[in-house]
Every structure is written in structure tokens, then in C-alpha cells.
């Protein structure tokens, strides 16, 4: 558990057809690992966005590796819509499971708690319910005439994110991004890239322990300095807006996207 390996060995955990959970842009996105995953070309991925995605999801879609996309939104933020996503939606290139943020969280919490479902308010009367055949309405067993939605547990095969640091024992700093804890506990395997390895235990003090994902839930760790670039990493570095804008412009066409991706892994490493 929490073994420190190369980026390539870490990326190899993402196998064709697996259910892969990825975090939102503000939570630490493993972009260096994404480049390494793309190199392996694992196709038919079922990508679960926790609860939304941006450039990472758009790239995996653009590379043709996504079979199912379960997400509450895909956007490049200030740089606008996600072009490969929009194009693939129009073409029907993958199965789309539109969601709403708290339902994704609840599905993961259900898996975290080992229960088959969680109830959630709202949703009834939206078109989401029409297309999410896996969501049901039941009667609240504690009150008459109170229909409520239940969403099934979401158990990813692999969860992946990028964090500031891990220690030699495999503990990972996640700060107040507690959806990463839920995601990791819900998943069968969790792989994490980090900026650096801490030589002292992250559990050494009560203060640092409060923001730690314990090694028990961490399968593999790889060091990837500036591993979230061009996205930012909380407490470490800001998003490279110019680079995201460059991607947004180029990815408008399949050719432009291919041109952008050519050498992306190298540019990612060089950004460190």
C-alpha cells in the first residue's frame, strides 16, 4: 500500500474498460499522469468526474479513450466550453451519463459506506431522471407521500489525483479537499502523483494528520513535479490560463487537437 513507483508504472494501473474517477480542476488533477495514461491508450474508459472535469476529461475524450462519461459538467472554465467533449457529444462518440454534483458525491459516499444506494433531495422533475435509468424514485419509508430519489453506489476501479506531497509510508496530503478521501475510499485502487516526498510522516502531528489520506487507501504514488500543469494545484501554483486558452483554441478541430497533443507529455515534463 502506498508504494512509490515510476510515473509509467502508476499509469499502467489504468486498464482498458476500467471505471476511472477523476477530480475537479480545483482539487488537483494528475495531468502528468494523464499524459502517461494516454501513451498506454487504454480505451473504453468509464470516466467518473468528481463531480466535473475540464481539460483532463476533454483530452481523454479527444484521444478516443472514453467509452462512458459520467459527469455533472465539462468546461475549460474561463477558456470556455470543452471542444473535444462538445464535438464527441454531437457525434455520439460515447455514452453520456449526465449527473448533478451532489448525486456524484452521494454515489461515492454510498460506496465509501458500503451501502448499495443513498437518498438525495431534488432531481425529481428534471430531465436527468429520464436519462439516468440507474437512478430511481422510492417512497421515503419514514413519511407518507414523500417520493425521494435514490442513487446507486459508485465504485471506481481506479481513482487518480495529484497532491502536494506524500510521505515514505504512503500517506498523502489532501488538505481540506475531502472529496478526495471519499473518492479514494470508494475506489478499489487509488493512484496519486505528488510534487514531492516528505521525509517525515504526515501523521506525525495532529495538525498535519487532519488533512491526510492514510496509506491504507493509497495503492501507488509517483513523483511528478508540477504534475497538474497546465492546471493549478491548491497551495502550490496557479493555473496557466494562457496555456489552457491555447488548448481551447487548438482543440476546436481534431487536427488542432492532435497538433496540441503532439509532444504534450514532453512539454508537461518541461514545465516542472
Amino acid at each position: 500500500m502506498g508504494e512509490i513507483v515510476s510515473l509509467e508504472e502508476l499509469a499502467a494501473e489504468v486498464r482498458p474498460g476500467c471505471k476511472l474517477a477523476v477530480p475537479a480542476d480545483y482539487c488537483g488533477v494528475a495531468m502528468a499522469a494523464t499524459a502517461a495514461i494516454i501513451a498506454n491508450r487504454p480505451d473504453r474508459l468509464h470516466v467518473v468526474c468528481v463531480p466535473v472535469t475540464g481539460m483532463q476529461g476533454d483530452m481523454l475524450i479527444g484521444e478516443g479513450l472514453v467509452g462512458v462519461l459520467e459527469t455533472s459538467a465539462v468546461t475549460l472554465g474561463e477558456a470556455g466550453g470543452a471542444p473535444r467533449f462538445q464535438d464527441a457529444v454531437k457525434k455520439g462518440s460515447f455514452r453520456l451519463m449526465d449527473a448533478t454534483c451532489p448525486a456524484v458525491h452521494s454515489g461515492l459516499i454510498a460506496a465509501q459506506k458500503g451501502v448499495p444506494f443513498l437518498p438525495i433531495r431534488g432531481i425529481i422533475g428534471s430531465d436527468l431522471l429520464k436519462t439516468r435509468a440507474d437512478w430511481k424514485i422510492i417512497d421515503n419509508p419514514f413519511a407518507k407521500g414523500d417520493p425521494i430519489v435514490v442513487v446507486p453506489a459508485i465504485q471506481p476501479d481506479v481513482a487518480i489525483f495529484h497532491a502536494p506531497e506524500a510521505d515514505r509510508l504512503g500517506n498523502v496530503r489532501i488538505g481540506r479537499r475531502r472529496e478526495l478521501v471519499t473518492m479514494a475510499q470508494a475506489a478499489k485502487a487509488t493512484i496519486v502523483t505528488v510534487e514531492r516526498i516528505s521525509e517525515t510522516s504526515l501523521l506525525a502531528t495532529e495538525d498535519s494528520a487532519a488533512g491526510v489520506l492514510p496509506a491504507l487507501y493509497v495503492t501507488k504514488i509517483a513523483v511528478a513535479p508540477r504534475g497538474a500543469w497546465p492546471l493549478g494545484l491548491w497551495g502550490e501554483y496557479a493555473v496557466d490560463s494562457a496555456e489552457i486558452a491555447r488548448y481551447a483554441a487548438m482543440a476546436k478541430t481534431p487536427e488542432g487537437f492532435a497538433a496540441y497533443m503532439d509532444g504534450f507529455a514532453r512539454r508537461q515534463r518541461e514545465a516542472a
Partner: protein
Amino acid sequence: MGDYTNRELLIACVADLLDGIRHVAVGASSPIPAAGAMLLRARNEQAGKPRVRISVLGSEEHNFFTNGGAELFDCTAQGRVDAFFLGGGQIDGEANINLVGTGDYPQSDVRWPGCFGSAFMYYLVPRVILFREEHSSRVFVPKVDYVSAPGTSEGIVRPGGPHALLTGMALFSFDKTRKRFALQSAHHGFTAADVKANTGFEYDAADIVPETKAPNAATLTLLRGRVTEELSESYPQFAELLRGERMAAA
């Protein structure tokens, strides 16, 4: 335009729409709602009224949540979020909103990002303010192509819903029972006829539609002073935009 810019008017409108709330959540990329919330907070402080708490979502500095991405939704379900803003690529006359796309789902002609938390927040926040600067019949349609979240519901627990619709051109109230908007006022520079021509859905309107109440001097002083300074921290580009428009208008 004279004394104030259209954006300043919108900010003042937002502050008025939020009057009485204790806690509002705003998106990191929603500067006008954030500015309105900050204006209310400043005004309340001056008047010795209860403190207004503002959670800026996605911001590292001004986000006071510590329990991860689920906290906004938990906090809302606990009844601790009084107001929230929602927009939409399409909004119809029954206040249904569409954040997904146009045409047949799932292969939308135009695809927007997705529902985000709307299919939850719209149901649970008591005072949801629909805000969309663009006022056109492309946005305000008779019937949305996809219901990300409905304006009204029957037979379910729904403490929240639409309180008002604010656009760059006008302010509407919403009657949940009748499932219908009513035009309250047109902003300075726009007429009731402008609104009619650019709205694709039916709504109620009095024979004479008043102009949206102009922000008073005290409000403009606060907005141009303290609030613009506060905005500079989280929304530096927007604060610059406000300053620039003001100078152009003066």
C-alpha cells in the same frame, strides 16, 4: 446612462434581491452576484444590521468550507444557504432552466457544460435568483429543450425555487402558483417593448412598466469605494472593468 452604469444597476438590484439573507453562496466566476452580495454586506454593516456571510465557491482564499466539495450541498440541505444564483443557456416562462444543450438529447446541437449542482440547489435554496445578462429570445424561450431543473414542483419536498429573474434589460418576479413571471421593471435605457421583443416566453406586465429603481448616492459610494476594493481581491479583472465603464460613462 448618466449617474450609473448598467452593471452598477445590476449589482444594486442583486443587493436588493438579497436583502434579509444571512448566507449566500456565489460562484468564483460570477462577479456581479458576488458584487451584489458584497454590497449588501457593506450596507448591512453600515446600518448595524445582521452580518451577511458570503461563500465564494472554488476560491482558495474566500471559501470558508473545510469539508470538501460536498459541503455546499450539505450546507444547503441543512437550510444554511439562504440564496444562490443560477443561470442557463435557456430559461423558459415556467422558470425551467437548461444548462445542458439545444436540440435532441444526448446528441445536442449546441452542448453546454452540464447541470452542475442545479438539479439540487434550485430545489433547496429558498431564494434562487436567476441571473443572465444576455436578454434575448435565444435565451428566454417558450420551452427549454432540456430541463436541468424545473421552476416548480408538486408532491415533493421543495423548500427552494426561483425568487426573481434579473437580466441586463429587466427585472422579473416569479409566481410559483401560477408558474409565471411578471415584469417588475425595465432598466434605464430599455422600454417594456424592448423587453417584449427580446423575450421568447409569455409573462405578466402592468400597462405601465416602471424603470428599475436607480441606486441611490449612498449605494453608489459604497459600491465604488469599499465594494470595488473588495472585488479587486477575488475578481481583479471585473473590478477593472467596473472602473473603466464608470470612467467612460462619466
